[in-house]
């Protein structure tokens, strides 16, 4: 018997696997010890449980347990990787290369580092112009005086500007139409100041899987560190830090049927990668992340990682079959649909599709018993449609008409059949009341019309 509502938004989060909950429970009850307590059995039990979980997480990605740093989740891992590398390697360089389609945890971290650098340069400009003008200079005068003294070509200022600022310069690379990075463009973007490349494993909106092994090989050849936000792909597609030459990788538990609030940063030991911590304190996690360990969540994360590793092959095949059934069911019944991103290089559970001339939010309203997500601006706080779809060159109208389906471990065939019928019905209903669909059917080129933007 089909149960409503149906959850098909497994990129946002996944339900906790009941087997994971089971192993966590003792650590929320009698085994409550602090893993740092070295002199009694409560502490020893907690420490042993954490050690086991660390091994389980390490094994999933081909790492050793000493390379796993537990964090509160992937956002923290991303922040720690980027800010930690930039701070630690500041004397080596300050240039980061990333993609326009990265998660906000990467993009906003990079933007902050750019701001830090800019603020430092602004201070230096004030200082230098003060020297050149031989008086105090106010920020309002900078533009005028900089032109007068030709500051950009001033040897002293240029020397100062090359000193570490605490921030970074960032290159945001475009992706190809299929959502993948162009390796030649990546190599071209590298400079002697490049210290870090941060490119995700799989995209959270379109499920496109990046050529991680090729990126890793290139970075190793160039002597640049490679951080991979691997949140969406791990446990769904094989991922191995050795084979792929990844130096740092962000992982989170709640995208692989574990609890929320726990994640990890993989930090390579050989050759050694160093990071400065963001959180100082008791020196936990080998000084890279202080704070009492969340033992129950770590135990759950570890077990979720073990299940993901053991069941990956069967699960990926099963989910892929369901995804294809969903995709074919929708595209066979409906005209004017567009798949966003590569079909070949894609997570098995992801389908991101635009139903031209049917707006995404109203479609979601029509299928309210099915939890999905949309690239429509109406579903977000900003008025812009999905920046990921826009980076692929997807037309704005189609971005507004996109729906992301995320299938997972607990998705059933019955649910897929139900969703196909429901979505087809609602798209047809919306198109029946869409002036754009009517015009497109009449052969009117919608681009030829002068629209009144508002």
């Amino acid at each position, binding site marked *: 018997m089909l149960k409503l509502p149906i959850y098909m938004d497994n990129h946002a989060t996944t339900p906790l696997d009941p087997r994971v909950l089971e192993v966590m429970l003792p650590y929320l009850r009698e085994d409550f010890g602090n893993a740092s307590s070295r002199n009694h059995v409560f502490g020893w039990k907690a420490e042993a449980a954490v050690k086991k979980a660390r091994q389980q997480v390490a094994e999933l990605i081909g790492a050793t347990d000493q390379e796993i740093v537990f964090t509160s989740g992937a956002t923290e891992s991303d922040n720690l990787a980027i800010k930690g590398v930039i701070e630690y390697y500041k004397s080596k360089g300050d240039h980061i290369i990333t993609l326009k389609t990265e998660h906000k945890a990467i993009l906003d971290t990079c933007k902050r580092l750019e701001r830090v650098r800019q603020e430092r340069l602004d201070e230096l400009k004030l200082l230098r112009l003060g020297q050149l003008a031989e008086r105090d200079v106010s920020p309002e005068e900078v533009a005028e005086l900089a032109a007068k003294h030709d500051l950009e070509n001033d040897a002293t200022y240029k020397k100062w500007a090359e000193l570490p600022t605490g921030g970074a310069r960032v290159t945001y690379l475009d992706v190809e139409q299929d959502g993948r990075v162009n390796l030649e463009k990546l190599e071209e973007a590298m400079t002697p100041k490049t210290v870090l490349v941060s490119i995700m494993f799989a995209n959270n909106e379109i499920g496109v899987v990046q050529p991680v092994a090729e990126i890793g090989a290139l970075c190793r050849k160039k002597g640049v560190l490679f951080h991979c936000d691997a949140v969406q792909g791990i446990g769904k597609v094989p991922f191995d830090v050795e084979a792929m030459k990844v130096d740092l990788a962000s992982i989170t538990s709640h995208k692989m049927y574990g609890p929320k609030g726990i994640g990890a940063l993989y930090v390579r030991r050989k050759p050694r990668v160093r990071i400065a911590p963001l959180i100082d304190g008791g020196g936990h996690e080998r000084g890279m992340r202080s704070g009492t360990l969340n033992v129950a969540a770590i135990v759950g994360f570890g077990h979720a990682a073990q299940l993901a590793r053991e069941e990956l092959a069967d699960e990926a095949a099963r989910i892929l079959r369901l995804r294809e059934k969903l995709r074919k069911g929708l595209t066979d019944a409906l005209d004017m649909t567009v798949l966003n991103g590569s079909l070949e290089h894609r997570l098995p559970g992801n389908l991101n599709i635009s139903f031209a001339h049917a707006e995404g939010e109203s479609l979601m*309203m029509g299928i309210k018993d099915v939890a999905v997500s949309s690239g429509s601006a109406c579903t977000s706080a900003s008025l812009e449609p999905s920046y990921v779809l826009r980076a692929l060159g997807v037309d704005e*109208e189609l971005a*507004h008409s996109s729906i992301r389906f995320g299938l997972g471990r607990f998705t059933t065939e019955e649910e897929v059949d139900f969703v196909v019928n429901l979505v087809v019905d609602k798209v047809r209903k919306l198109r029946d009341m869409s002036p754009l669909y009517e015009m497109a059917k009449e052969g009117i080129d919608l681009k030829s019309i002068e629209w009144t*933007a508002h």
Partner: protein
Amino acid sequence: MAYSDKVIDHYENPRNVGTMDKEDPNVGTGLVGAPACGDVMRLQLKISDDGLIEDARFKTFGCGSAIASSSLVTEWVKGKTVDQAMTISNKDVARELSLPPVKIHCSVLAEDAIKAAIEDFKKKRAARKAQAS
């Protein structure tokens, strides 16, 4: 985001969806919004020679609030004179549907659609008169 009951009602049972012959001299067509912005409304009004709105039809590409706003105004304008319809404001629409601040632009679009449709009708009539004289 939660929708008001009235928005849901108009979304699930939209009134007066359809297309009129835009070549008909008594039909005024207003097409407002832009696909890139995620909302396009087309409102068509059948207006008698003495300026009474006899019928209205809409088609809308947009979110639930945009569909509800256009559905609502088709109900409101029917039976009104052109001058009366011109006084319908976006605030009336937003209040009736309890639209949240982020959806106010949907009601603005509905008001614009009424004005654009009446404008179109007036232009047609002026062109007809010019031809006749």
